[in-house]
């Protein structure tokens, strides 16, 4: 075992081996790039989390002076940007980077050097964003930066530029990754793996990639227009000259809404991988889950103006976008029921990864329900820009996407590092996250109903506001402890975790058909034949193989 390990690229940067830094900085191996994405995402998660804790500290009491109003607006802006673009995206696309070639039986991504470029662009863009603090020009305009607030004279030199440059540079990297993932799944599949047999996480990653590369151009256009207005004195958003600030919102949300599904779809992919394995059953209704993902992606490009119900578009437009937005609940519901049906009649193993899947199911459904609430136009007139909305998107993005990410980490950590994460620490991480999360964010539904708008650095002591804000802050503190335990688990397990073999969970898909960690070329031995969505399961349990049951 030890001799064989030395032949493989160490998955974790080990300072003991000579030239390790240069190896990592020049690597084009998708596994190493994937690891770099994951580490980067986790580091930014800690930073974004600290920002959140500061925000919650300031809001714990009425009239607090922990943060000055300008600093508060900067933290709120950068927290949102960080979590979406330097945590969610890198972690999910990092997982895709690591896993997609393995899952389809390929040696690497279609464009390995482009892959490396994507990563370094992502890192650089994050450093650029945080450099803005040192430059005294951190963005303070909210993560979606509405015009004309982003323009002169309302926002000073540098802030808007840092905002849009950091986003644009990271977008370039992600577009390249999106092209890479799609081209890889199209052209690098193992023999026998038709598109219909591609594992669900890889499939969702492709759909998310295409959704991103088609959704981000309107944002690039909108941001370029902001830059041109600021730098060349142009008039895109200048009402007096015939321009229109609302066009910014149309263009931005044409990107912004699909973006949340770019995050949600790979997360759904993780859930679709983990639940079946720990239920010892195939994913129920897999073709429907796959089709529902396409439905979600397609619909997500037709609903953007539900972020604009208060802008004055008129009842016809509002009705159209409201009804379209409600429709997204249907494919999402289909997935939730299929996941439940997967568990039904199964043999459930409650590993930490599975616990996070269960936590995801119980929590994300709330986010989905409040999503229907904001799709009901008159309800949105009360909810929009209030803490009810903040609760909604944290339920979907943290309670949904982040929990799925935690499940993925516990599930694939053994594959990536060859060691298990500690299950006992994992369970502490899970329960504290569940409790902390609901305390933090359920309280915010109440605050929204009590009339508290978002993005305010302080508030008068209206009835209920200080109490529920304090509850939310206490929840955030619990979440902080949970995250410390998580990081501790990773650090400890890297050194002392129980050794994991190639297939520690009795998995279904090809990434478990190689050693943990995999050799540089991914597969040293010939692949099992691919005759269904679960080639490894078929090879291990031929009497129960999927291809015996397939009608499609």
């Amino acid at each position, binding site marked *: 075992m030890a001799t064989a390990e030395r032949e493989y690229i160490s998955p974790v940067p080990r300072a003991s081996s000579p030239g390790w830094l240069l190896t990592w900085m020049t690597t084009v191996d998708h596994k190493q790039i994937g690891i770099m994405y994951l580490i980067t995402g986790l580091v930014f998660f800690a930073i974004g989390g600290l920002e959140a804790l500061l925000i919650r500290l300031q809001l714990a009491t009425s009239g607090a002076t922990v943060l000055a109003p300008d600093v508060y607006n900067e933290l709120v802006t950068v927290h949102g940007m960080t979590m979406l673009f330097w945590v969610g995206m890198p972690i999910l696309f990092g997982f895709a980077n690591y896993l997609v070639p393995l899952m389809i039986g390929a040696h690497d991504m*279609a*464009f390995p050097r*482009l892959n490396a470029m994507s990563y370094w662009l992502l890192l650089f863009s994050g450093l650029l964003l945080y450099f803005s603090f040192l430059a005294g020009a951190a963005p303070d305009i909210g993560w979606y930066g509405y015009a004309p607030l982003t323009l002169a004279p309302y926002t000073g030199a540098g802030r808007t530029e840092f905002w849009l440059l950091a986003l644009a540079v990271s977008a370039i990297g992600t*577009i390249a990754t*999106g*092209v*890479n993932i*799609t*081209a890889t799944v*199209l*052209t*690098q*599949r193992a023999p026998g793996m038709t598109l219909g047999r591609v594992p669900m996480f890889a499939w969702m990653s492709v759909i998310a990639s*295409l959704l991103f*590369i*088609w959704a*981000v*151009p*309107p944002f*690039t*256009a*909108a941001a*370029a*227009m902001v830059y*041109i*207005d600021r730098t*060349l*004195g*142009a*008039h*895109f958003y*200048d009402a*007096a*000259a*015939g*321009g*229109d600030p609302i*066009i910014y919102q149309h*263009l931005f949300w*044409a990107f912004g809404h699909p973006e949340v599904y770019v995050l949600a779809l790979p997360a759904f992919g993780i859930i679709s991988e983990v639940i079946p394995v720990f239920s010892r059953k195939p994913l129920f209704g897999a073709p429907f889950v796959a089709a529902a993902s396409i439905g979600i992606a397609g619909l997500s490009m037709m609903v953007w103006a539900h972020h604009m119900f208060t802008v004055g578009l008129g009842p016809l437009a509002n009705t159209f976008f409201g009804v379209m937005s409600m429709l997204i609940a249907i494919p999402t519901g289909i997935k939730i029921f299929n996941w439940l049906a997967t568990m039904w009649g199964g043999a459930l193993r409650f590993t930490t990864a599975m616990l996070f899947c269960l936590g995801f199911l119980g929590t994300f459904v709330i986010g989905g329900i409040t999503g229907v609430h904001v799709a009901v136009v008159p309800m949105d007139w009360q909810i929009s820009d209030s803490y009810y909305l903040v609760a909604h998107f944290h339920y979907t993005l943290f309670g949904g996407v982040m929990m799925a990410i935690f499940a993925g980490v516990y599930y694939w950590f053994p594959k990536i590092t060859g060691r298990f994460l500690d299950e006992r620490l994992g369970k502490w991480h899970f329960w504290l996250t569940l409790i902390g999360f609901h305390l933090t964010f359920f309280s915010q539904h109440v605050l929204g109903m009590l009339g508290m708008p978002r993005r305010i650095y302080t508030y008068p002591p209206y009835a209920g506001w200080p109490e529920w804000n304090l509850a939310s802050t206490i929840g955030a503190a619990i979440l902080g402890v949970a995250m410390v335990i998580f990081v501790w688990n990773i650090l400890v397990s890297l050194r002392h975790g129980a050794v994991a073999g190639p297939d520690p969970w009795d998995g279904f898909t090809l990434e478990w058909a190689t050693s943990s960690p995999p050799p540089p070329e991914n597969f040293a031995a010939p692949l099992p034949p691919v005759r269904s969505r679960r080639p490894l399961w078929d090879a291990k349990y031929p009497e129960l193989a999927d291809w015996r049951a397939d009608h499609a």
Partner: protein
Amino acid sequence: MPDWRRADTNLVGVGIFITSEAVFFIALIIVYVVYHGRATSGPSPREVLDVPYAAVITVLLLASSFTITRAGARLGRDDRRGALLWLFATIALGAAFLLGQGNEYRHLVAENVTPARNLFGTTFYTLTGFHGLHVLVGLVALLIAAGVGVKGRLTARGHGGFEAVALYWHFVDGVWVVVFSVIYLWTLL
């Protein structure tokens, strides 16, 4: 369904990328159309645009699509010298387009038509400018291909890579057809 596993990855990659860039131009074109005629002051496109001039440089750019197709055909037959000549022609035509556009900008700026002047200036320079930027990137790719060709390494075997560059070039020309129609031909209505 094409057999994706036998497809040239470069072509697949550039093809996917082009769909993304297409959406980018659609967004800018929509903005131009929505803002057409809404400038509250300053000149209208009809008053300042020289349509015949723009038609000439359009012909140059479309000709470059023809020449690059010829280059691809030659390369497919492993006629490396022929391919390189048609490639040079493409680069010359593309450069002529850009220079022509730069010249047009010069004239317009001299007449005080700038992005800051009015909403038309804003949208005109943005749409044509981003297109020009894409032409420039394409020219750089073509020059790199020419460099590879001069070294004798542009072969029928590397055909897929060349086809990918050609696909991008055709896309840029296709976008110009739309941009030319929306900006210049519209003034004739």
